[in-house]
C-alpha cells in the first residue's frame, strides 16, 4: 500500500508540483501524468529516499521495487543475470556465489518471454537497446518479492503497441502479486487504457 498525504517533493528549497493526496491499495495501478520537468521523477525518488526534502507525509507498507528512467544496470552483466538480481535480497551470498540456481534462471527466462524480450539472454545489458533494457526492468518486477512498485516512464522507449502490451502484462502481474503500483507515464492514452486511478498535473492535480 502506498499513501501520500499532501505530499510534495522539494528541490533547492522550492516545492515541485502541488500537494498530492492519494491512497493506492495492494493490487491497484495508479498513473501520474504531467509535462516533462514538472517533478514526477523527483516525487518517485523521494518515496524511496525519505531523507530527501519534501512537504507533507507518505506511508509505504514495506520496501519498494523501482524502475527508474536511467535503468541503472551493470552494463557488463548479461540480460538473464540482470533479471535474476531481483531475487538477491532473498538469497545469501553463498547461494549466489557461483551464479544463480537453475530454477531461478528458468523463472527469469519465463518473465523475459512474458515481456517479449527477444535478444540472446547472455548478451551484456550495455549492448542492448533502450527498449530491450526496459523489458528487462519489467521482467525483474516479475521476480521481486517487494509489493510496492514505483515506475518512472517504464515503456518510454517502446513503440505504442508494445508499450500497451507490456503495461497490460505488468498490471496483470501486479494484481496477481497484490502489488501497489505508482507509475509515471508521458502518454495519457496508455493511462486511460490501464489505470485504476489516473492523476494528471497541469497546475494542480486532477483525477481523471
Amino acid at each position, binding site marked *: 500500500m502506498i499513501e501520500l498525504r499532501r505530499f510534495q517533493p522539494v528541490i533547492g528549497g522550492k516545492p515541485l508540483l502541488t500537494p498530492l493526496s492519494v491512497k493506492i491499495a495492494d493490487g491497484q495501478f495508479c498513473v501520474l501524468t504531467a509535462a516533462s520537468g514538472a517533478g514526477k521523477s523527483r516525487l518517485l525518488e523521494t518515496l*524511496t529516499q525519505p531523507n530527501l526534502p519534501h512537504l507533507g507525509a507518505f506511508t509505504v507498507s514495506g*520496501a519498494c*521495487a*523501482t524502475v*527508474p528512467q*536511467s535503468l*541503472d*544496470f*551493470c*552494463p*557488463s*552483466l548479461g540480460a538473464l*543475470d540482470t533479471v535474476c*538480481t*531481483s531475487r*538477491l*535480497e*532473498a*538469497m*545469501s*551470498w553463498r547461494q*549466489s*556465489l557461483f551464479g544463480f540456481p537453475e530454477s531461478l534462471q528458468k523463472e527469469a527466462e519465463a518473465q523475459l518471454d512474458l515481456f517479449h524480450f527477444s535478444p540472446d539472454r547472455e548478451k*551484456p545489458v550495455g549492448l542492448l537497446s533502450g527498449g530491450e533494457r526496459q523489458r528487462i526492468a519489467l521482467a525483474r518486477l516479475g521476480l*521481486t518479492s*517487494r509489493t510496492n512498485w514505483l515506475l518512472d516512464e517504464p515503456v518510454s522507449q517502446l513503440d505504442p503497441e508494445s508499450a500497451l502490451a507490456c503495461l497490460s502484462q505488468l498490471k496483470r502481474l501486479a494484481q496477481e502479486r497484490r502489488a501497489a503500483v505508482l507509475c509515471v507515464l508521458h502518454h495519457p492514452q496508455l493511462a486511460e487504457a490501464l489505470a485504476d486511478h489516473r492523476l494528471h498535473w497541469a497546475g494542480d492535480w486532477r483525477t481523471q
Partner: protein
Amino acid sequence: MASSRGNLFYRILRWIGFALIFGSILISLPALDGGTREVDFITQLLRLVDRFFPPDLSVLPEVGQAFFETFQIATLATLFAVLFSILLAALSIDEISPWPLRFTLRVVLSALRTVPSLIWAVILVAMVGPTPRAGVIALTLYSMGYLGRFFLETLDASDRKPAQWLRQHGASPFQVFQFSLWPNIKASLQSQSLWMWEYNIRSASIIGYVGAGGLGLQLHIYQEYGQWNRFATVLLFFFAVVLTLELLSAAIRRSAQIRRSK
C-alpha cells in the same frame, strides 16, 4: 577582463612549470659524473662485449633449472597478489565498507607500492632466509600494491549507480560487488594480471641477487667470478623467454578483445 587575467595566470603557471622541469634536469646532471676515476667508456664496453661472446651454452641446463624457479616464484606471487588485491580493492569502496576501513586499506595499498620489489626482497630474505619463499612473499607484497591500486582506480572510475541501485533493492555488499562491480573489472583484470605476471618474471630474475631465489642468483655468481660468457648465456636465455611470454600474452589479450567485441 576576467578571462584575460585567467589566461595570464595560466601562462605564468606554465612558464613556472617549464622552469621547474628545466631546473630539475640541470641540477640532476652531476649524477652523470663518474667520480674521480677517469674511465674510457667505449673501451670498457667493447672489452665487456668481447667477454660475452661466444656465450657458454654448457650451463644451459642449470640456467633452465634456475629459470624454472624464477617462473615458480613469479607465478605464485602473481596468483596471491591477484586474489588479495581484488579483496583489498573491493573493501576500499564506499558501497562495501565504512570509511575508517576504506581509508586504512587505501593507505596500506599506497605503502605496499612505495617500496620497490628489490627492497622487499632484501627485507624478506632477512626475515625468512635466502629462499624462494622470500621471493614469493616479496613479489606478492609489491604486486598487491600495484594491482590493488589499479583495481581500485577501475572501481572508482566505474559508474556506481548500478551498485547503489542493487543495494537499494536489498543485495548484500558482497552481492553488490559480485553483480555490479566485478563484471566491469573482470576484463581489465585479465589484462593487468598478465602484465603483472610478465613483470614478476623479470623481477623474480633480479631478486635472486639478494638471495631470494631464481635466475638472479646465477647472474650474481657468474658476475662475481667474472664468467661473462656464462652471464651472457643467462641474458640470452632470459631474453628469449621474456620475448616468447610477451608474444603469448599479447595474443591472449588480442583474442580476449575479439571475443568481447562479438
